[in-house]
Structures are given as C-alpha cells and as structure tokens.
C-alpha cells in the first residue's frame, strides 16, 4: 500500500513527540519524590547527555551548561603558584619546549637574563600566545615538563578585538588549575613531589661521600 512507509516513519516521530511529554512527566514525579529537576540542574543535564536521554535534548546554554570533562581543552594559560604575600611564582622556566612543539608556532617567549651576569635565568620576561593562530591542540600542555602551561576550560572569551595574549593576561593561579582539572592536578603534584624527593635524596647522597669533580 502506498504510504505505508510514510506512516511507519511518522510513527517514529509520533513516538518521539510522546516521549517528550512522558519524560517530563517522569521527571515531574522524580521532582516530587526525590527533589530532582529535569531542567536547570546538574542531574538534568547529566540525564540529557547520557545513554538514556530522550525527549527534550537541548541544553539551554547560558542558563545551564554542559558538564565539561576534565580533559577539555581550549586556549592555554600559564600557571603561577601563590607564594607568600600574594607573590606570583610563575612555574614557567622558559625552557621553550612549548614554543618548539607548537604546530602553528603561535607561542613567543623571551627568556629572562640576569641583569648582572647576563646569564639566562629560568623565568620568562615576555610570553605571547596568538589565540588567532592557536589550534587548541594541547601539545604545549602535554609536553611541558613543569606543568606550567595548561589548557583552559573557559570558552566564553569572544571579544570585539583580535586576541593576542601576553604574560599578564595568560597568568592564572594554581588554585584555578586545581579547580578545573582536579585529577590532573593531583597526579602532577604527586609526580612533582616524587621528583623533588628523589632529587633531595640524590643531593643528600651526593653530599655525603663528597663526590670528586663530576666525571662524565
């Protein structure tokens, strides 16, 4: 019979239509019994991005937001540790690995020099990221040995100007890093502690037998 296929297809859309209201009703019940809300709540957004999602699928940004996974990457930022008296201890040592590995070469770093000796010291004087070149690939954060450059989660950065970031705009505190990437932060911290402990142990070991001038 002509039209059977169309009807069959319509049954699918009808079911979807029905699901919308059914799901709302189910959630209404859950709201009464458990106090869970379908909209504008975390469990609601979670439900809508789970395998059981049906009915209304839209997440109404900006009123509600998708749950951002920890690994999510946007434009990178630089981490500083909060030292005593609000001093910013920038983690970056300006080793240049990120600038070297950056595929579109959007990172510019000026290494600091000691004003007296002229020798390089491990901190950047200037640091630029051209966000209009950056491809958000995450290599800089991946290969940085000091955990000093991290991919941000903040995507609400549209502006009326071109976006070229300098050191000042790039810096964010370690506490922010911890808040957006708790597990990454924890593993990195653990690694750092282990490394420092090993270093201390080695230093202690080296100091004791008063090693003669380093041999190769």
């Amino acid at each position, binding site marked *: 019979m002509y039209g059977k296929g169309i009807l069959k297809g319509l049954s699918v859309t009808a079911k979807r239509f029905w699901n919308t209201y059914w799901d709302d009703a189910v959630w209404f019940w859950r709201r009464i019994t458990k106090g869970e809300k379908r909209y504008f709540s975390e469990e609601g957004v979670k439900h809508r991005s789970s395998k059981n999602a049906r009915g209304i699928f839209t997440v109404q940004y900006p009123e509600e937001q998708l749950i951002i*996974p920890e690994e999510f990457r946007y434009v990178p930022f630089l981490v500083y540790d909060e030292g005593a008296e609000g001093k910013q201890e920038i983690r970056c040592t300006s080793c240049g*690995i990120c600038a070297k590995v950056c595929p579109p070469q959007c990172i510019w770093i000026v290494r600091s020099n000691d004003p007296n000796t002229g020798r390089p010291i491990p901190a950047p004087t200037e640091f630029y990221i051209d966000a209009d070149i950056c491809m958000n690939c995450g*290599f800089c954060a991946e*290969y940085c040995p000091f955990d000093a450059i991290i991919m941000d989660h903040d995507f609400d950065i549209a502006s009326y100007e071109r976006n070229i970031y300098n050191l000042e705009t790039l810096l964010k505190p370690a506490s922010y890093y911890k808040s957006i990437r708790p597990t990454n932060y924890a593993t990195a911290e653990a690694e750092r502690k282990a490394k420092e402990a090993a270093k201390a142990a080695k230093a202690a070991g080296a100091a004791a037998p008063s090693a003669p001038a380093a041999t190769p």
Partner: protein
Amino acid sequence: MAAPVSTQTVDLAARFPGAVTAEARPGYAGFIVEKDKLVEVATAIRDEFGFDLLTTVTAVDYLPEDKMEVVYHAYKTTGGPGLVFRVQVPRADPIEVPSLIDVWPGVDLQEREAWDLMGIRFSGHPDLRRILMWEGYEGHPLRKDWQEPFYEEDVKPFKSRWPEGKHVMAEEKNPFRDNVKFLENFDPEKWIPENEEMLYSSLKRYTVQSEDGMSTDRIVINMGPQHPSTHGVFRAALTLEGETIVGLKPVVGYLHRNHEKIGERNTFIQNMPYTDRLDYFNSMSNNLGYAIAVEKLMKIPVAERAEYIRVIMVELSRIQNHFIFIGMLLNDLGAMYTPALYAFEERELILDIFEAVAGSRMMCNYLRFGGVVRDVPEDVMQKIKGLVFERLPAKTDEMDRLLSENEVLVARLKGVHVIDGETAIKYSVTGPVLRAAGVPYDIRRADPYSIYDRFEFDVAMRPNGDLFDNYIIRLDEIRQSLRILQQAVKQIPDGPINSQKPQYQVRVPAGEAYGRIESPKGELGYYVVSNGKPNPWRYHVRAPSFVNITCLEQMCIGTKIADFVALLGVLDIVMGELDR
C-alpha cells in the same frame, strides 16, 4: 599494521627488462619505470597482474638530486598488498610525464593536482588545468624551492619564537604587508584576469545543432561555491539542456589550506593535529591513517591496549559520520531537519566521549606514534558500553524505520545515478560508494591494518549502485561497526597505552611509507617520505573525497539537475579533505 608493500608477488623488472628496474634505495620499495614505457607497463600492471585499482598518484620533488618523481600506488580489489611504481624525470622545465588517463580514468584530478602544485605536465591529459589554485597563479607551490609570502624558515620550530621571541605579526615581515607576493614591478592595474575561460571552454558544449539545422544554446550554470547543499565550498559548473545535465566540471580549491606545504615544514608529531582538520567529521580516522604511515616508517609496534582504543574510537567516529550522512542527505532531499536533528543527537553523545578522552569534540589529536595519548577512563568506558550495546543499535533501527521505506525517499533514490562496479573501479572510487556498486572492497578486510583481522564482521555490500543502495549501505555499515565495537569493548585488555616514551621529537629513518585505512568516506592514504630529518620531506594525503569526485561527470551526464544534489549528498564529500 598494514602488510608491507611487497615486491615478491610481481616481478615487473623481469617482465619488462630494460624498461623497469627494481627500486634499490633503502627504505623504498617497488619499481622505477622508464618514462616512455609508462603507459605500456601500466596497462600490463592492470591487465596482466590484476592491479585494477589505482589509488594514488602523487609527485615528489627531490631537489637535492635534481629529480622529480611521480609515484603510483596500485591495488587489487580482490585484496592483498599493493604495488608501487614510479617515474623519475630530471627537474628541468618542462617536466613531462605521460598521462595514465587512458589506463585508469581515475587519475584525472590527481594528475591535475600534481600539475598545479608541482608543475608536472602530463602529456595526453585532455584537460590539464590548475585545480586547487586558480588559473594565473604564480608558481607551483609544492616545489621545494618555492616559498610562500609568509615564509619564515624551511622547517619548524622557527628560531624567532624562542629564546628571543618578541611577538611580531607575520604581516610586518612581508613587503606587501599581507599574505601575498608579487614579482618585481608588478602593476595590479594592468592585470587582466583569466575569467575562467579555460573552465568554460572545457565544458565545450555551448551550442548544438539539432537535426533540423536549428542551433540551440545550452545554459551554463554554476552551483556553488556558496550553495546550501554543496556541503561547504564545492562548486560545479554545469551545462544544462532543459533540466538535463550534459556537461559538468567540478571546480574545487576553495578550501585549499596548503596542508601539504605546511605539513612538510612541520615535524612529524606536529602534523597530527593538522590531520584532524582534513576530514573534520572523523579526526580519529585521520589520526589513525597518519599514525600508521609514520609507524611503518619508524618500524615501531603499537601497544596492545592502544590498538583496541584506536579501533573503538575510529568505529565510533564512523557511526557518527554515517548518522550525519543520513541526516544531511535527507536535508538535501528536502526533508528539512527532522532526520538531521535526530542524527545530531547521537552524534553529540559520541562527541561527548571524544571530548572526555581526547579533550575536544572534533579536533581530537588523540593518537601518538606507538599508541594513544591517554587512557580511556573507566566511566567513559561505561558510557561507550551503554551506547554500543543499548542506545546506538536501537537508534539505528529507529532511523531505519523512519526512512528506509518512506515512499518519497525511495522514489527519489531508487534507480537514480547508477554506477556499476567496473566503472567505479576504473575511476578509483573507494569506500561505501564502491561497495554499494557491488564490489566488496573494504581495506579493513582486503589489506587489514591495526587489529581488524581479529574481529568478526561482514563487509557491507549492495548490488545496484544506485543512490538508494548508497543510502542503505550506510545503515549496514553502522550495524557492522557496532558489531566490531561490541567485540572490541569486550576484549580490550589492560596495559600500557603507548609502546614509546612520550617525546616531542621523534626519530624517523629515511624511506617512504604509504599508510592507508578505510575511512568512513573511502580509502584515506598518507604518503610520507622521510630523509632522516625531524620533518617529513614529502607528505601527501590521498583524500577519498577528492578522488571520489573524479567520476562525477561520468555519473551525471544525462541525469536531471535535481538529482545532482542527491548525488552530492551521497558521495559524502567533505571539503577540508577534498581541497586540503
């Protein structure tokens, strides 16, 4: 890893003494064919040795040796390893190589690309125009001695970035203060634009004489580059008689982003995120093809768990691609939005997984040489399981119910734009389009790479080669992918996720490699030549979308223009990959 291209099975050198020599350079394989004998040898390769599918034609500029080389990769549609043969010509203008268009018509666009970017003249090619750049453009960009306006250094990393990296806009270093370069004393006011005369004359059939001596004009129309159903910036110049297409030329290059030129300046690892941007629906498969090619060169194994993760990600990506394919096809056919919106729901759920493991929805940059960048967390694994065992099978059936029997859809698609298997092979068509034409050629089976030989699945195949089969085969493929996924999720072992240490500079021995995979759109191949330095010497992408449109003219002549939109939808082209 794909079976290495072996030379044992075929001994061309013995068959053509004097005209063919076996390749002797370390790291290279295949045969070198004398230029004058090329057509003859190629015919023999096709007819006597049975390599009926010529997948890749590309050129390499060996500047230090003052040579240009054209490399061909031929395969058998019955499966098995391929055959590489090449022609070497001295690097003095004009560089000329006989065209193979009479042996394999599928070389058409690829030869035009080699002419455009490398400046190799293919004698005997009927329509050798520039393809990615425009007619009148100065120079052949992929030549090693050609430099672009924003040229900084031959290879990355650039020295100006560190340790004295003051931010300077590239524009400020260029005399024209923009991304352009002109010859000395160029006067823009005196320039006479080419106006695409060559394109229109290649269409040729402006005026016809009917039997009674009346001459009729035919209409030439341009579809694209801005057109709602050309899937991006594709353009087709068509000649019409009434509503019937009598001539067609695809015009591409509107998204030519110089992938290969940039790729040859990048280090090996830096190319990984760039591959994401080829077929931007399937960055996972793009990563895989490139990783396989470089792993072949480096001769490194892949960690066991990583192999499984790769398969899982690539198959998820295929499912997502095919869902969108169906949605977009229906959009093009006029079933505005509903199927597309349904498809997008499933896609979003799959993208959530990519975002959680790789960090980005579309540009995953997830694979590394020897493995993957990070493990799949347990909760994401649970989500994958939920999708592949419960949700996606049900949703595939739902899509099937929604559309497959719909009389309107069937009427639009059945028996339209039939392509038979033989023609498809001749035109180097691969992927679902070839399989819908009755040729069960799937690289996952024909020349297994990664760990596809461990899974049980059928190669989806449909006999008719019309648009409807092309549609339905996508559903078949989703189901097969789900089968693979279900096995993979069950079997995935624990263990390390990379066989190598993470390093930002890899050592790649000199040689060449061609890594190919069955991407959702067809054969995706990467031809990489290394000279032992940190950057590839040649990096070529054999994009399925690009090669698949070679047969467009062939398929369209004599059909209605309204169906052309459907055909474009069915070919599933994506411009990022087509134009690179």
